[in-house]
């Protein structure tokens, strides 16, 4: 990849040949859904009515407190917990950081995670181990579709000194659903709190029911960015790692962004209401991609569980293709996707998820359908993909033999 090809993204500019915005197709919802109309409406109202500090006593403050309480109650009902078990935080990543940091240390603590957790979970576990002398972070391997090895997970959590375990509800890169209920049972037997990072599935699948700590991110369900959820069940072996603060049951410090939280709750209510029908529709579109891509593109590997997956994510890797070049070529043709390959804007090493699965790490494309995705969007993607792959292969001299 030459500097000339890199510069458009690194400078953040739009290229002159850009497809008109209205004709563009967005297939990267796993990194953030467009704002749901319900969230936008709620945001406008809540900024007018819920701007004050919800902890104050005067009228304006009580208004903000009522809005915040209602949002908390609404999300608690969807998660199946009490309102005081739900705290709001500034992002899904911050929720994970605080969630992992709250595992109660012992001498020679161990934090167990699957090898394919979101990078925030892995980073938080490594920091936990570094901050508690003699401690370790244990990674449990996955199979070729990215599902954690159950026996090895059970064995790991039943070991000495385990202070917490983390398992995502579903994988954010390949969509595979993880066995969190079974993991919760083995964690309960071992007396270990289980943190379930539900960011990839909330709003698309029924929320996981068995966990001690749950984290999620509002912009993945059509809420605004800047709102994460940290839910901690009463009686869990968990304590806040932050300095004393009365906010959010002492779990998250600082003045919460009430309007954004209200918008996040409105969006989740709307998204959950439409979930069953929408998920069936999106899942059928993903099935089309899974079936058609190997017919349209030679030397491609479709990844993740074909059935037991979130409805809206599909990932594949194309042999002899530079993932970043393919992403940019698809963008030039008006289709936005993401890639787990190395050399893409955010990473110099390949995706740890693809590596753990033993999948091809180069030429990787993640397609994640927004809630509003239509057949015509997928048709457009499938129409431009073969040419885009051929262009990148030609550029690399990979079709000359």
């Amino acid at each position, binding site marked *: 990849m030459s500097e000339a090809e890199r510069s458009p993204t690194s400078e953040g500019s739009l290229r002159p040949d850009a497809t008109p915005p209205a004709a563009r197709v967005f297939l990267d919802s796993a990194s953030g859904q467009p704002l749901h109309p319900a969230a936008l409406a709620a945001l406008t109202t809540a900024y007018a009515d819920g701007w004050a500090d919800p902890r104050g006593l005067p009228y304006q403050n009580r208004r903000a407190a009522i809005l915040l309480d209602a949002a908390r109650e609404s999300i608690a009902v969807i998660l199946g917990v009490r309102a005081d078990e739900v705290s709001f935080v500034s992002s899904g990543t911050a929720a994970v950081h605080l969630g992992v940091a709250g595992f109660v240390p012992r001498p020679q603590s161990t934090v167990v995670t699957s090898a394919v957790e979101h990078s925030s979970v892995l980073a938080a576990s490594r920091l936990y181990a570094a901050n508690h002398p003699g401690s370790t972070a244990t990674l449990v391997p996955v199979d070729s579709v990215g599902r954690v090895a159950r026996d090895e997970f059970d064995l790991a959590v039943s070991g000495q000194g385990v202070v917490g375990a983390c398992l995502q509800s579903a994988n954010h890169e390949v969509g595979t659903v993880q066995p969190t209920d079974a993991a919760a049972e083995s964690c309960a037997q071992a007396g270990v709190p289980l943190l379930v990072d539900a960011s990839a599935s909330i709003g698309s699948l029924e929320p996981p029911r068995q966990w001690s700590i749950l984290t999620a991110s509002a912009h993945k369900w059509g809420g605004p960015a800047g709102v994460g959820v940290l839910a901690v069940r009463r009686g869990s072996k968990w304590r806040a790692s932050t300095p004393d603060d009365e906010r959010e049951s002492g779990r998250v410090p600082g003045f919460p962004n009430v309007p954004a939280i209200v918008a996040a709750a409105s969006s989740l209510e709307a998204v959950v209401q439409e979930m069953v029908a929408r998920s069936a529709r999106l899942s059928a579109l993903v099935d089309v991609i899974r079936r058609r891509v190997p017919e349209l593109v030679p*030397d491609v590997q479709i990844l993740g569980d074909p059935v037991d997956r979130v409805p809206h994510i599909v990932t594949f*890797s194309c042999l002899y293709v530079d993932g970043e070049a393919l992403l940019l070529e698809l963008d030039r043709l008006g289709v936005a996707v993401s890639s787990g390959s190395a050399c893409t804007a955010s990473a110099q090493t390949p995706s740890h998820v693809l590596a753990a699965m033993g999948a*091809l*790490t180069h030429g990787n494309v993640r397609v994640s359908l927004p809630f509003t995705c239509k057949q015509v969007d997928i048709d457009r993607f499938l129409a431009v993909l073969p040419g885009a792959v051929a262009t990148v292969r030609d550029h690399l001299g*990979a079709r000359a*033999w």
Partner: protein
Amino acid sequence: MVTPESGASETSGVDIELDERGKLCPLPIIALGKAAASAPGGTVIGVLSNDAAARYDVPAWCSMCAATFLGSTDHEDYVEYRIRTAGGNRTDD
């Protein structure tokens, strides 16, 4: 960069050695694909690479192209991967 086996490789039985050091994936894998396409079935190819992705992509290439991954040897600043081709043609041809 294809060189016949000449003692450059520490491992015996390598028919073709590809020195792909300093190149990022997918370039080493493209070189492997090209070499495998023109080599007779059963050819043992060694790939020298210092790209982190090669550790995953050489075995993944083998499983996609019905080749056999024979193993790897870590050196100070690169890794040698060894594969055996199944046939002389690309799987999609």
